[in-house]
């Protein structure tokens, strides 16, 4: 009885008792959620076009951020470094298509998945070789990203929003909107979905798989770079960021592997739930709920909706 009260009643009392605190936690969850969404988006792009779960997405985030900071340390102005990094992401996409994907055309998906694991090991090695292993600080101010916080008075207390978090949310929203429109309304977007559905048919109407793959890997690279900048601004730029990418897994299960809106909503649900759970229920079990609760939610979803919230329902005519 005591325990049930602690689980089901006390936390909600706490929430209603201090709405400012509740809003603060909610906001933290929202910001974490947008970043999870961004990471998941990178996975979704590549999965949609090639049916490959790109294990290297996490390290692409680190690699993008490291390149940016590394170039700046070499004396390249921040904005030029950013442009160069976009270039690096393109070269990476092109190289991956040439060296990894093209020789493996028509191989089973699991082979391609293994190849991306190999790719991620390679990128870790390359990143450490070029930039060294020690954590770096993101060049937030140089890129014109705001710092400091805005405080709002709410219900007797106040809620403090970090400006960088607001910028992250806005940037994610813009990026997601552009990508969603691009992939649903344009020729290349249609071609991409066509490739995802049927390679042979796509080729027969004149779509070149190679071109499509470079485009999606490049898009995923841009998303990775943006994620790297935003995560890097909140913590340090280090290889530990790669672990964050694993949070994308529950997000993908929740939202569906093939859905861009799914990645967004899934990310927000995971972000908000984990922060709320950590803050209000964490003390009951000694904390660290946020490391496992996303996977727990994902598991629940697998029971009821295996294709995810927005996943394409598999249509099978028998």
């Amino acid at each position, binding site marked *: 009885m005591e325990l049930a009260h602690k689980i089901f009643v006390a936390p909600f009392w706490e929430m209603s008792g201090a709405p400012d605190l509740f809003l603060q936690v909610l906001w933290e969850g929202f910001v974490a959620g947008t970043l999870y969404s961004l990471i998941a988006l990178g996975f979704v792009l590549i999965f949609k076009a090639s049916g490959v779960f790109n294990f290297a997405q996490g390290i692409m985030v680190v690699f993008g951020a490291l390149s940016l900071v590394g170039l700046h340390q070499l004396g390249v102005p921040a904005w030029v470094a950013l442009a160069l990094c976009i270039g690096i992401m393109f070269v990476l996409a092109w190289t991956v298509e040439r060296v990894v994907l093209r020789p493996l055309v028509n191989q089973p998906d699991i082979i391609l998945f293994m190849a991306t694991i190999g790719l991620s090991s390679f990128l870790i090695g390359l990143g450490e070789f070029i930039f060294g292993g020690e954590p770096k600080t993101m060049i937030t101010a140089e890129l014109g990203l705001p710092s400091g916080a805005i405080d709002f008075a709410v219900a007797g207390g106040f809620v403090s929003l970090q400006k960088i978090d607001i910028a992250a949310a806005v940037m994610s929203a813009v990026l997601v909107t*552009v990508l969603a*429109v*691009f992939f649903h*309304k*344009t*020729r*290349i*977007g*249609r*071609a991409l*979905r*066509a490739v*995802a*559905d*049927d390679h*042979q*048919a*796509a*080729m*027969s*109407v*004149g*779509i*070149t798989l190679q071109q499509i793959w470079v*485009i999606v890997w490049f898009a995923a690279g841009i998303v990775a770079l943006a994620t790297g900048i935003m995560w890097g601004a909140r913590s340090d730029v280090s290889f530990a960021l790669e672990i964050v990418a694993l949070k994308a897994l529950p997000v993908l299960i929740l939202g569906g592997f093939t859905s861009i809106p799914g990645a967004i909503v899934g990310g927000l649900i995971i972000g908000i739930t984990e922060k709320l759970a950590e803050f209000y229920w964490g003390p009951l079990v000694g904390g660290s709920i946020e490391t496992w609760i996303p996977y727990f939610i994902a598991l629940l979803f697998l029971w009821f909706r295996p294709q995810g919230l927005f996943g*394409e329902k598999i*249509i099978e*005519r028998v």
Partner: protein
Amino acid sequence: MSQGSTQTKAADAPGGTAPSMHRDDVPQLHTEVLLDLTNVSLSFGGVKAIRDVSFNILKGEVRAIIGPNGAGKTSMLNVINGFYHPQQGTICYKGKTRRVMRPYIAAGQGIARTFQNVALFKGMTTLDNIMVGRSLKMKRGLFWQILRLGPAEREEIEHREVVEHIIDFLEIQHIRKTPVGKLPYGLQKRVELGRALAMEPDLLLLDEPMAGMNLEEKEDMSRFILTTNDSFGTTIALIEHDMGVVMDLSDRVVVLDHGIKIADGTPDEVSSNHKVIDAYLGVA
């Protein structure tokens, strides 16, 4: 054409071709060679799928490729549109001898096709499936497309109009927004034809366009194929098992058996050929 008119039959279809129209009614004067295959051989490891086959396809004709199962008909189509690469032989298309061939190059040269087992983009709507067929016709760069501004927007609208015409022609207005995975087989075949037509092909390859269809669906499909051939002058090569359909539709027929060409000629010539009868009846 309105939504309700999808049930209307041939009489008021675009082009007005009646389904019963027989090829013999129309004087055929095809002389220009569009595609010429000479001594083509294709093998997979030790399996010889096509052995030393030569035939041509004339501009504007309907050419049927027939033969028992495993005769190499689909392999032949795959060779023509670049999925397979014959080990021997030359292929001459529009007067130029091919060297390297890839499906997207073939598509760029005006070769469109449908597949035996319906290869559609199942998660996409009918409209989007056919729009994909316009891929090669749309040229605006990535940059404009991302912005979805000006020229790219105009281009999108232009091509959408063409696609709407095709949808009207194939009488599939009522399924414009339906994901094709949900459609019955006969309609999927029709959407696939639509996607191929959207490429405005010079040579249209149809792999068993009427497989698994009932009589009415077959009549509709025959009508679409004939109208495409008559009104747009599209050259058509088709594989079909229904002999009635082959006789009605085609100008000339090539017969394959075990990868070898055993007959070539008008439907009447071919149907009275002993080798053909033997191959179909299984005489040793």
